[in-house]
C-alpha cells in the first residue's frame, strides 16, 4: 500500500514538471505584436504601412512602427525648425519632403501631379488621409519609434519631428529585439 502511494506521488510530480515546462513555453511564445521597419519615404509605401498598421491595431495587435532613413520625411513637421545645422544637414533638410503631406509617389510622381491625383482619389473614394491615419494611429496606441542613427546621419533633429503621443527614439537593436518576440514582422 505504502509503495503504491509513493509511485502515484512520483507520477504526479512528474506530471507537474511537464506541465510547468509547457506553461513556460507558452509564456515565452510570440506576442500578438507587429513591428514594421519603414525605410521608404514614398507616399504609396507610407500609406500602405499605415493601412496595415490600422487594420492590425483594429484587431488588437500591438503595432510598433520604426521610421528610418527616407521614411523620416513622413515624421517631419514642416512648421518646426531646428537650429545649429551644418551645410550638408541643411541641404538634406531642404531637398527632402518636409512632411507626410509633401511625399512623392514611387511611380507616376510626374513632378507632384501624381500625389495630387492620388490625394484627390483617396478623398473621393473615402480612404482616410495620412493626417487622419496618423490621428487614428495615435488613438489606437500605435507606437512610433524614430531611428536615432538615420536621423543623425541625415542631419535631422528631434525638434523638427511631429508631435505624436507615442513617440520615442531608439536604435536597430530595439527593432530586432521587438521583432524577435513578435508573431509578425514587416519591412517596408
Amino acid at each position: 500500500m505504502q509503495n503504491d502511494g509513493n509511485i502515484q506521488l512520483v507520477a504526479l510530480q512528474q506530471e507537474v514538471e511537464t506541465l510547468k515546462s509547457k506553461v513556460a513555453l507558452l509564456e515565452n511564445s510570440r506576442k500578438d505584436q507587429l513591428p514594421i521597419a519603414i525605410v521608404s519615404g514614398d507616399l504609396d509605401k507610407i500609406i500602405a504601412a499605415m493601412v496595415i498598421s490600422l487594420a492590425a491595431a483594429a484587431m488588437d495587435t500591438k503595432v510598433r512602427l520604426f521610421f528610418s532613413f527616407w521614411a523620416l520625411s513622413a515624421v517631419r513637421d514642416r512648421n518646426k525648425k531646428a537650429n545649429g545645422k551644418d551645410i550638408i544637414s541643411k541641404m538634406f533638410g531642404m531637398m527632402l519632403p518636409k512632411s507626410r503631406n509633401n511625399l512623392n509617389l514611387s511611380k507616376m510622381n510626374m513632378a507632384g501631379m501624381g500625389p495630387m491625383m492620388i490625394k484627390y482619389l483617396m478623398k473621393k473614394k473615402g480612404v482616410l488621409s495620412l493626417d487622419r491615419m496618423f490621428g487614428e494611429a495615435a488613438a489606437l496606441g500605435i507606437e512610433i519609434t524614430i531611428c536615432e542613427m538615420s536621423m543623425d546621419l541625415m542631419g535631422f533633429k528631434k525638434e523638427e519631428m511631429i508631435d505624436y503621443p507615442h513617440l520615442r527614439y531608439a536604435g536597430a537593436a530595439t527593432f530586432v529585439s521587438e521583432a524577435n518576440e513578435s508573431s509578425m514582422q514587416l519591412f517596408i
Partner: protein
Amino acid sequence: MTQEELINVKVAKTVDARGTACPGPLLEAKKAIGTIKVGDIMEILSADEGTKVDIPKWCQKQGHEYLGALEEKGYFKVFMKKK
C-alpha cells in the same frame, strides 16, 4: 444564419461605414463594439467589397461570432454577435 434570418434579426447597433474605404469600416467596428453588450448583434454597412471578407477575419481574431452578410443596393450589411 440564413438570408431570411438575417433580414429579421434584431440589431442592437448599426455602424454606417459606407463613406469610408479599407480600413475605415474595421476602425468604425472596433470603436462601436465597445458600446454594445455581450450577446448583442451589430450590423456594419459598407460599400467596400473587402469589408465582407475582412469582418469575418476580424471576428475570428477578436473571438466574436460572424453571422453573415446581406447584399443591398450598392452596399453590404455585415452581421456579427459580440462574444
